[in-house]
């Protein structure tokens, strides 16, 4: 019999991809199941979905934010466990970590994609200025100086108005090199490191040095402003997340390249932020659990992985099966996984679930540090203080 499924999502951006590619592919294989992709503005998503789940009007399939938000939904019994779903074994534990209970026993969302941080640059500008991609921090700043001296390009396209840019594209982007990726992150959770330790303060210090290279009035520069500055060719380097790849390709009329966050000294191990970002789960009170499970199994399949990763270059599949990607820039990003150690954002798991929210705190202080209204030490102390107020690491 016919079943119709609705996918709740915050990905308005992907509406046409779902409608034109993904859903037809699924429906072709599963006659009798109709799927609707119902995205909404990302800012409304959490609250709207929560309300709907509570009242029982949510769709069968719920797009999962990573880590604690989805975990909370699962704990409230709104998301069904998916341990026995066909295809769930296609994912590594790391891939599943964002949607698995703390004890590692139950997975409740099918991982869909992760995003990687780095820097995207304007190749044309680099050629004009005859500069090379930097490997170390010193090279990086020398490069910025050079661009600035030339005056044709804004060295770095980033603003602090929306705050999250400062943290996500700044602190989380370059920080892993200092706190040594997962090592530092786990130590933080274990309580053996503190945010006031040098490894965690260092990235703020680096960030503070970015200020002169940002555009005029960066304090009021919003995220779209930064995107536009770069794609309109007015800025040379864009501290990026891999999700920018597709839109940048569509908008920029110049060649782009990418480089990972520069290391302190040549030869240091490099770390990249490779963050699980999107999953998809099953509404525990959905009306068509069978059909929904079929769909989820399909999402877990390599077929979906290939389709998805190629339709949305920059959202990298978490599927263990290697995915062949066509986009060169996306390949560039993904290639870093080979040399560098990936890590997720430090504020995402476990230390991110209390009040004040560590993630939001880091947004705020990162912006403050770049604006110069706080010193790196103050910033670090504030975040640690917030964390201390509720987080008691298990001994």
């Amino acid at each position, binding site marked *: 019999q016919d079943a119709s499924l609705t996918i709740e999502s915050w990905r308005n951006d992907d509406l046409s991809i779902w409608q034109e590619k993904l859903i037809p592919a699924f429906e072709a294989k599963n006659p009798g199941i109709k799927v609707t992709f119902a995205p909404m503005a990302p800012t409304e998503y959490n609250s709207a979905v929560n309300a709907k789940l509570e009242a029982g009007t949510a769709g069968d399939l719920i797009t999962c934010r990573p880590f604690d938000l989805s975990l909370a939904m699962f*704990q409230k019994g709104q998301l069904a466990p998916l341990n026995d779903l066909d295809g769930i074994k296609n994912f590594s534990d790391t891939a599943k970590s964002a949607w698995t209970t703390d004890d590692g026993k139950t997975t409740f969302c099918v991982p869909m994609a992760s995003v990687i941080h780095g820097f995207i640059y304007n190749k044309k500008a680099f050629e004009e200025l005859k500069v090379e991609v930097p490997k170390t921090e010193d090279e990086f700043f020398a490069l910025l100086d050079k661009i600035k001296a030339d005056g044709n390009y804004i060295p770095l396209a980033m603003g602090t108005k929306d705050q999250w840019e400062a943290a996500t594209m700044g602190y989380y982007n370059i920080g892993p090199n200092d706190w040594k990726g997962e090592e530092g992150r786990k130590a933080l959770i274990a309580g053996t490191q503190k945010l006031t330790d040098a490894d965690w303060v260092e990235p703020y210090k680096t960030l503070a040095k970015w200020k002169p290279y940002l555009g005029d009035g960066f304090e009021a520069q919003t995220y779209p402003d930064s995107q536009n500055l770069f794609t309109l060719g007015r800025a040379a380097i864009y501290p990026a997340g891999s999700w920018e790849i597709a839109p940048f390709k569509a908008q920029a009329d110049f060649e782009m390249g990418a480089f990972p966050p520069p290391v302190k000294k040549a030869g240091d191990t490099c770390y990249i932020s490779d963050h699980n970002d999107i999953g998809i789960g099953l509404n525990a009170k959905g009306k068509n659990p069978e059909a929904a499970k079929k769909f989820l199994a399909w999402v877990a399949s390599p077929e979906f992985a290939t389709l998805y990763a190629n339709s949305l270059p920059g959202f990298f599949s978490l599927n263990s099966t290697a995915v062949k990607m066509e986009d060169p820039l996306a390949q560039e990003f993904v290639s870093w996984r080979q040399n560098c150690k990936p890590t997720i954002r430090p504020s995402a798991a476990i230390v991110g679930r209390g009040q004040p929210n560590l993630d939001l705190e880091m947004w705020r202080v990162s912006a403050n540090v770049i604006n110069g209204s706080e010193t790196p030490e103050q910033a670090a102390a504030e975040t640690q203080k917030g964390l201390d107020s509720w987080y008691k690491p298990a001994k």
Partner: protein
Amino acid sequence: MSDIDTADPEIAPIKRPARWHILVFLAPAFLVYTAVMILPLIETLRLSLYNLVDNQTVFVGLSNFITLFSDPRLAANFWNALWNNLIFFVIHMLVQNPIGVALAAMLSVPKLRFATFYRTAIFVPTLLSFVIVGFIWKLILSPIWGIAPSMMDLVGLKWAFAPWLGRPESALITVSLISVWQYVGIPMMLIYAALLNIPEEVLEAAECDGITGWSQFWKIKLPLILPSIGIISILTFVGNFNAFDLVYTVQGALAGPDGSTDILGTLLYRTFFGFQNQMGDRSMGATIATVMFLIILAGVSLYLFVIQRRIRRYQF
């Protein structure tokens, strides 16, 4: 509601027959409003007395309120938001309402040409959705795209330009002024309607008495529209203390920079519905909502029981 069909004994010593019409007039509004608005809201505010413990809602009495005011971080956020909100309100009272009244006064000049056009034009911002208002003002004030700087350049004021929305000192004022820009239409419309109510002959008598122009406004019109001024003040108060969307669209849910534009509304929404990786905390949200409600209720009661009773109304 059973008491409404008996007359106040002090006013009419004579027992009147049941005045069912009062009930009929009140019933539809009362029912819809109670069922769709009040009951759900009570249901929500009730949460302020509960908290989530191990995924179970348990009654905790006033402990949420104690937490709100004792937890240094929550309390700091709250006082910061309250203070910002006061500034937000003061700016509206000082800028929006006088401008609105002035515009209405000018528009009500009899036989003014193009009055309809002006009125419509000035009201257009009020009709806009926040999405547009946020987008367009960010675009205008952006140092990058150059609208504001180049326009200020035209009048030789370029030096005075700054990324206002990005600076903690100026962001709140800027956002308030954007809100003023958007909402001037409301006091304007209300005052305009009130001015239309004043009988022409009274104004003519004033003309003959030599009370013209400004003094006519101050001495005749203003006292006669005082009840409406009262209304717009209280509406501004209520509106400002509930405001949220504009800050949200212009400055984001974090109401940056560094919380400098955080008002009670944004604090409440962030707390209640959560934001990004911060989970919504219904109980604390409801607690903040209750406190806000009490603040607004105090203001409205002050108005209803003290000010409104002092304002004289005139029948025309």
